[in-house]
């Protein structure tokens, strides 16, 4: 199940965190992976660590030319592109009206426009039918959360872009889905822990345990991405798939 033998994938934001876990699992399942990251050095270190079937390229997802170059590099290195994972994203964690216009714009540029540009660049190379796009949204794209105002808005934007792109591209046989994780053990969550703890007044780990049982792992997110990237999910398109330990299901 979910084998990705012979598939060629491009993962933005793949140097660390969720993107790195996705790249690692894809390799384990038989795929070749191009890691595209704004941190070029980090991308290269990760690519070296993951072995011969992984390459790295610098990519700023706010620049269409960077994404087009990343797609081209994937095609040049591996002979094609089958799976595009738009994973790169940033967070701003502070009360909504303390966020600056610059912070808001930059976050939207990376998290929303970056996904739009990533999908557009990939569509030029993805096979029809058979190409797959997986966009990294968030549970924050399906519900509001204090301190995550612009982040929630951006991830809701990713969910909606996914829906529209999926329906518009359906006749081509390209499938497009979104993944919506809750809090996962990544550097991003490590950064926001003290802020949430201070503002909410409850230790972050206690809050996470109460709401989602525990903090999820990047490997668990990668499994969901791998499922959506594989032919096992052939009737899934335009979906937003949640992994949150039960957070969204609970009223209290």
């Amino acid at each position, binding site marked *: *199940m*979910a*084998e990705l033998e012979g598939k060629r994938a491009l993962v933005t934001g793949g140097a660390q965190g969720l993107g790195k876990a996705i790249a690692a699992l894809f390799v384990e399942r038989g795929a070749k992976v191009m890691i595209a990251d704004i941190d070029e050095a980090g991308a290269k270190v990760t690519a070296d660590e993951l072995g011969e079937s992984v390459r790295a390229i610098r990519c700023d997802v706010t620049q269409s030319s960077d994404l087009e170059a990343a797609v081209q590099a994937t095609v040049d290195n591996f002979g094609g592109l089958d799976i595009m994972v738009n994973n790169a994203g940033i967070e701003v964690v502070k009360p909504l009206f303390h966020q600056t216009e610059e912070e808001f714009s930059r976050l939207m540029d990376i998290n929303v426009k970056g996904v739009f540009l990533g999908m557009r660049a990939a569509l030029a190379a993805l096979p029809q039918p058979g190409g797959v796009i997986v966009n990294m949204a968030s549970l924050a794209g399906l519900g509001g959360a204090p301190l995550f105002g612009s982040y929630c808005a951006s991830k809701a934007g990713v969910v909606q872009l*996914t*829906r*529209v792109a*999926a*329906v518009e591209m*359906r*006749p081509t046989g390209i499938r497009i889905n979104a993944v919506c*994780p809750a809090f996962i053990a990544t550097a991003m969550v490590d950064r926001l822990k003290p802020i949430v703890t201070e503002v909410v007044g409850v230790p972050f780990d206690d809050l996470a345990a109460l709401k989602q*049982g525990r903090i*999820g*792992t990047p490997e*668990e*997110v990668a*499994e*969901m991405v*791998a*499922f959506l990237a594989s032919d*096992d*999910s*052939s*009737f*899934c*398109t*335009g*979906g937003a*798939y*949640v*992994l*949150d*330990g*039960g957070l*969204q*299901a*609970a009223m209290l």
Partner: protein
Amino acid sequence: MAGLLEGKVAIVTGAAKGIGKAIAEAYAAQGATVVVSDIDEGMAKETASRIPGASAIACDVRSEEQVKSLVDQTVAQHGGLQIMVPNAGIGRPVPLLGMDYEEWRAVTSINLDGVFLCIRYGAPAIIASGGGAIVNICSITAQAGTPLIAHYSAAKAGVMSLTQTAAVELRAQGVRVNAVLPGFIETEMVTSVKGDFERMLGFPEGQFDQVIAMKQGRYGTTEEVAKMAVFLASDRSSFSNGSPFVLDGGCRASLL
């Protein structure tokens, strides 16, 4: 590669045919020991006989005694239970204002009460076996109004709600509960009522298929539903709990 469900014991209700049968086959292919349960004992036996390692147990999911007995027999025969798939369900088009209470109960007693009973008696056995997963077979009709199947849609919405509550209540005891929400799948249940839908909605013949093509591209297959059910029963979905897993070719993604 080892199967994803190696060493697990699974009950699939309504497994003699259709989606349930496909799930039973896929689970067995992934190494699970499958109990094919169905109200039709003859067909359950027939289906089980074609699946390696599977056995059949007849069960009317409307009966508390029979569901209890299904779980008890499974545990007695196989030493435990890790996966429960309440899949048994029926559906047929009836206009809301022509629907009598008997018709309403005929559908809701199987599609909703039956799922409650499977969770109520399946979950303790799963907990006693060290944890596992419940995969409820729901429907995208749980999420939007669907003409002529008020009873079916309401029951499926109920199943989604049960999924959420069960997920939260059972989390600490190691039971994950998720729901599969298929769109229209090529099964006897769907193909046998196409003509009725067309007549009752005043559609010309063949329009049902056109609506499906427009909304979800094509019909899904039972195998596609089964692959989602495998993912949700396996450790690969270990952080998903209480969520809807839609497979509908994009139907729900579009307002139009």
